[in-house]
Structure formats: C-alpha cells, structure tokens
C-alpha cells in the first residue's frame, strides 16, 4: 500500500503547475463556461495549447502522436489542471473517441485521426442519445443504410455536448434493423460539416448552451469512417462511456477543492446579522462535511485511476466514481448557496460577486450532472448488477 505518486508523476504535476502559473488558464477564451463537472470549461484555444505541449495524448502510443506515458501520468496532469480550473471540456469527448479508435479503429483511422486530435486541431462530440433512446441506448433508431462505398445516415441525436463547436462526432446508428436490438448497431466517425447535418444548441435551465441536437438527413458517410465492425458497435460505445463516466467525473475532488477554499475564505471574512459566519457551528459542520466528502471522492477516484493504470478495465467502479462525484457536486452547490445566504444578491461591485455568480450557476446547472452520461439510477443498477452480482430483473 502506498498513496504517494511516483517521481515522474510528481515531476509532470510540477510542470503542469508551472505552466498554469505562466499561462493562466483563465486567460484563454471559453466557448462553454465551467459547468462544475470538475474539468472546467470548453476552450478550443486552450485545448490547442495543451496539444502543443503534448498533453492531450499523454498516454497514447508515440506512433500516433502520443507521449507513450502512463495513464496515471495522464490522470495527474488532468488533476492538476482541474485544480487550476483549466478548461478541459474541449478535449474530453475526443479522449473518449480516441479510446475507441485505439481499441477498435483501423490502422488508417489511427493514422488519420489521432495525430490531429493530439494536436488539438480537431474537436469531438459523441452522438449517442436520441429522443427515444436515453437510458435505453438499445432503442437507437438513427439508421445507417449501406449504399455501395457509403452509408447513408438518417435520424436525430440529442444531448451531445459541444456538437456545435466540434469538427467531428461519433454517431451510433442502426445498420441492421432486422437483427436483435443489441446486434444491429454500428458507430461512425462523422464530420459535422457534412451535407445534411444540422446542429442546434439547446439552452438548458442554467442558460448555458452546451447540449445540442443533431438532425441527420441523408448524410453520406464513407465506409472508411465505420469505426469497428459493422453491427458490433455496442462494446465500443461502452468503452467510450467508460471515458465519459470515469474521465468526465474523476476530477471532481480537484475541481471542487478550490470552490471549498473560496467558501472557507468567505466564511472567515463575512458577517451576517452581527455575527461572524465563522462562529456559526452549523456552517462549520456543513463545510467540514463537504471537505470529508471531497477527500472520500478523491480516494474513490484514485482507486479507479490505479486500476486503469494497471491495465485493468473498470465497469461498476466508474459508476461509483460518477455517482459519488455528481451527487457531491449537487450538495456542494447547495451548500455554497446556503453559505452565501442572502448575500447571493450582492451588488455587482462586491468582492464576492464572482463566487456568488459561480454558485448560482452551479446550483442550476448541477441538476444535470446526475443525468448526463447516464443517470444516477442507471449507474446504481450497473453497480448492483456488475459490482454485486445481483440478478437482472
């Protein structure tokens, strides 16, 4: 048992820390603001900058533009970036797709896509859900019909984050409507500028524009863009979902550490009704509870990262990571507003305006955390079936 990071890992962390000091992440323009998942906002510019450093592809093989380093190093770099609230959203889905391409892609696909992705030149979205296929992905109705050297795609996707900003999108579509539901699905690498594609951002209840809907009308996709085998798309999608569930949530403890630090600073300085907030035992207890949960969250995330680093695949473990992180995020936002109290109505010129804005935004956006990438209920079912071996209903 040893909870230290290796020397190489610590060196990389230090390098990332210095980079964040020299080139403050907040100085890069963001297309989507930090929604509180832990990995910061979406900034194409910052993603490209990380690409120049080689930090988008830390654990990919060198031959495809990667650094050939360990998954733990990739995790450590992401963790340090998250603590500095660096925007990592822009390459989150590309990371997931890269896992799919590395695991299931042809040599040509690897050579064509991965080096460009490593540089941050092309950004990705993932188009899985549909109006009739949310938690029930097997109900996917988008159709991909073979037409000589092409597939013709028709259908509708909903909720892909950043599809309006992405250059490419992974699309799950039905190639064999006659086969049993789980057997007729395939995945495609689709250029979002292809004729017949319409992408509309959806404004969510927080006012953020990150989710999209995609309409596909006779979209012609060359056969070379079929990822993996025809009608064998599901395992690949699950591999990508692992990306979404683990990599999309494993930075909660780091991203939220700063939130807690800022709330502590506020409580230490502010007074209300003639009483210093820091003397309020309930507030102290509440913030300490968040600190406890963040530390538990950190260890749960480390455990999963350690398994991945050993080359083990994770299934229910990523559902534990996701559920814990999302629900903690919701509690943190709630606690943040509770701590700020009526002060959330502070004037624009207050020192605490940024904190207030962040928490009012997080409070509304965080309702979506336990839905995106698989609801907490789906995660719990996964944990029960795969983690505990309970029988399927």
């Amino acid at each position: 048992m040893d909870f230290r990071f290796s020397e190489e890992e610590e060196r990389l962390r230090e390098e990332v820390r210095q980079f964040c000091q020299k080139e403050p992440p907040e100085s890069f323009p963001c297309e989507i603001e930090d929604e509180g998942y832990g990995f910061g906002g979406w900034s194409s510019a910052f993603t490209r900058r990380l690409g120049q450093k080689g930090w988008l592809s830390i654990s990919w093989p060198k031959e495809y533009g990667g650094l050939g380093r360990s998954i733990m190093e990739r995790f450590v770099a992401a963790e340090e970036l998250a603590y500095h609230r660096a925007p990592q959203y822009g390459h989150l889905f590309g990371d997931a797709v890269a896992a799919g391409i590395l695991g299931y892609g042809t040599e040509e696909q690897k050579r064509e896509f991965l080096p460009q992705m490593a540089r941050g030149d092309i950004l990705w979205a993932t188009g899985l859900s549909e109006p009739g296929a949310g938690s029930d992905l097997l109900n996917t109705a988008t159709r991909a019909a073979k037409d000589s050297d092409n597939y013709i795609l028709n259908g509708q996707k909903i909720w892909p984050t950043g599809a309006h900003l992405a250059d490419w999108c992974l699309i799950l579509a039905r190639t064999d409507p006659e086969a049993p539901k789980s057997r007729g699905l395939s995945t495609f690498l689709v250029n979002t500028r292809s004729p017949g594609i319409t992408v509309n951002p959806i404004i969510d209840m927080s006012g953020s524009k990150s989710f999209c809907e995609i309409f596909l009308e006779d979209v012609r996709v060359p056969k070379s863009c079929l990822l993996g085998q025809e009608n064998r798309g599901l395992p690949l999608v699950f591999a990508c979902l692992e990306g979404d569930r683990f990599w999309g949530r494993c930075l909660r403890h780091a991203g939220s550490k700063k939130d807690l630090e800022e709330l502590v600073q506020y409580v230490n300085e502010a007074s209300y009704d003639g009483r210093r907030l820091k003397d309020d035992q309930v507030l102290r207890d509440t913030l300490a509870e968040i600190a406890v949960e963040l530390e538990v969250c950190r260890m749960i995330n480390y455990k999963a990262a350690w398994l991945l680093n050993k080359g083990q695949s994770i299934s229910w473990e990523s559902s534990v990571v996701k559920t814990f992180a999302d629900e903690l995020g919701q509690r943190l936002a709630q606690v943040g507003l509770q701590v700020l109290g009526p002060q959330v109505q502070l004037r624009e010129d207050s020192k605490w305006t940024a904190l207030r804005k962040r928490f009012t935004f997080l409070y509304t956006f965080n309702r979506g955390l336990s839905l995106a990438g698989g609801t907490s209920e789906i995660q719990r079912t996964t944990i029960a079936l795969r983690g505990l071996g309970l029988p399927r209903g």
Partner: protein
Amino acid sequence: MDFSFTEEQEMLRKIARDFLTTECPKDLVRQMVKDEKGYTPELWKKMAELGWMGLIIPEEYGGIGGSFLDVVVLLEEMGRACLPGPFFSSLIGTLAILEAGNEPQKKELLPKIAQGELLSTLAISEPGVGYEMNTIQCQAMLKGKEYVINGTKLFVENAHVADLIVCAAKSKDGTGHQGITLFLTNAKSPNLTCTLIETVAGDKQCEVSFQGVRVPQGSILGELGRGEECLKSLLQVAAVAKCAEMLGGAQQVLDMTVNYVKERIQFDHPIGTLQAIQHHCANMLIDLEGIRYITYLAAWKVNEGLPFGKEAAIAKAWASEAYRRISDLAHQCHGAIGFCEDHDLPLYSKRAKASEFAFGDARFQRRFVAQEIGL
C-alpha cells in the same frame, strides 16, 4: 500509487478469516453479548497462540514486530466476524504504552501483553466529558511519593476484565502548570470500583470510579502534565483502528444482504431483481467503497509515520455515518427477519452504532476537520 496489500498481509487476512469463521461463530457472539465477561479464555488463548496480541509489539519486547497496516488487516477481519472480547480495547492500551512508555515500563509490560497474559484498556471519557481533553475532571494529586487519583471514568471498555487501566487525569507539575497525565493504573487497586454499563450493543463498557486510588510515581506514562499531545495522537490512531474494524463489519453486512436478496423470493422472483432493492445495495457499496479507501489512506499515513490527524478525523467522520447508513439499508432489505434477536444482522447494526461514538462521532471529527480546512 498502490492500493494493494502485501502477500504476507493477504495471507494474514486469510488465516484470520478462516480462524474466526471456525472459532468465532455467531452463536458464540450472541452468547458473549449476554455473558458478563464478554469473551472466552479459550478463544483468547488461541488468538494469543497466533501471536495477535503481540502483532504490533516489536520483537525486542516479545512481539512479532508487525506494522500498523498488518493490524488493520486483522481488525478488518475481526470486524467482519463481530469478534467479542477485549482485543480492541487492549490494543489501544498497548499503543499507549508503545507510544509513551519508558524502557522499564515497556520491558515489564509488553512481553506479558504479547503473551496474552496482560489486558489493558484506556480511560478518558467521564460523565459529561467525551474526548475533549481540556474538559477532563479526574484529578491526580501528589501525596508523598504517590499520586492519588479521584474521579469517575465512563465507557472504559472491558475494564472489568483488564489488568491495567491507562487513566487520563489532570495534575500539576512542579511549576504549577496543570495538564493531562496518563497513569498506568492497576485495575485491581484498592478504592477502584468497576461497574458494567448496559449498552445497546452488549459490548462491555464500564464505569470506573477512582476514589483515592494510589499509584506510584513510576506509573506515569510519558511526561507529567504533558500527556495531551500523546493522548490526542493516541485517540486519532484509535479512531483509524476503529474505522478498520467498522470496514470489516460493513463489508460483512453488505455480503449478508446481497446473499439474502438473491435468495429471498417474493412475487416469484428473488427480491434482488427489484430496482428498489438493487439501488439500496448499490448505495451500500458506494458507502463501503468510501470507508475502505479513506480508512486505508489514514492507516497508511499512520504506518508511514506521516502526519495523519486530518485523515484520521476524515476517515472516522465518514465511516461513522456510512456504516450506520449501510446497516440501516441492510435492515430495510432484510425485512422483518432481520429484526429478530436471533438474526446476525442486529449484532452488526448495534455495533455500528457503538462504533459511531467510539473515539469521537462524526460531529466531533468534523469540528477538527473545520479547523484543518482553515475555518
């Protein structure tokens, strides 16, 4: 980063599990809840033969020279088996001697402890006093060459069978500074009375009354009037050790529940197929995973000699509430059968409650955590 135990530790785990499965069946546990002594000398002797009491004691004092993480493995298995008896309470007394004892004290006491011949326990809490040391009322006054202790100690675990009580009392040093001193007190001293308190879990907690108990100066453990730091650190180690025991218990509670819901048929199917039940079980596993890794983090820090106060408090804060949530859900999943006295589950859920309070409950720990995060 490495979350795994060594091969030797895995071996120790297996030996402990096999041994306790055979030697500590639930009927014995149930019997011991009602038994005044609370353990059988036969089982105690067998455990001593395995070297468990000497596991944490260095070889030079007749022990095995194991690490704290070795002890964690053992405690997990004891928690899993719901082992009754004074192992845990005596371990804490042993840790106090290891931490603060001088050479003659160690030479005299540790070999006997390692042999299983000497039982110790720690006395801190008092009526109205939990684990906040500055509120301790118990007094020790120097009279000639002896100290005279007066006061009442509460929740002194297994004091009724202990040979040695490590008692925290207030005393003045030569300069008039008043502070906490730890005294090695003979449990059979005159003017010391021990009364069993009836508790929910049937664990053997005692009220120990010191009414002019005389102890020689050589019985001071550590420095006169400067015992507070030592005691604080001892309580934190004890909290981590308790978390390890709770982890084992919580794991067993989840295992029992999973087995039950796979077998219990209602509406023609195992109730484990129902999502309401599945999600209860998932919640138990999430909480358990939390207990596991946060406990290992704190235990590893203790093991490495790194500062561990914050991690210990965080671990105990989490484990205290998570284990209670786990046993609550276990009861819900077991239905009425788990409500019966003869069932195994109440043994654990009552222990969960007792463990919650031991060495500071979640709120106590969070008071400390609040300071640690800069409040």
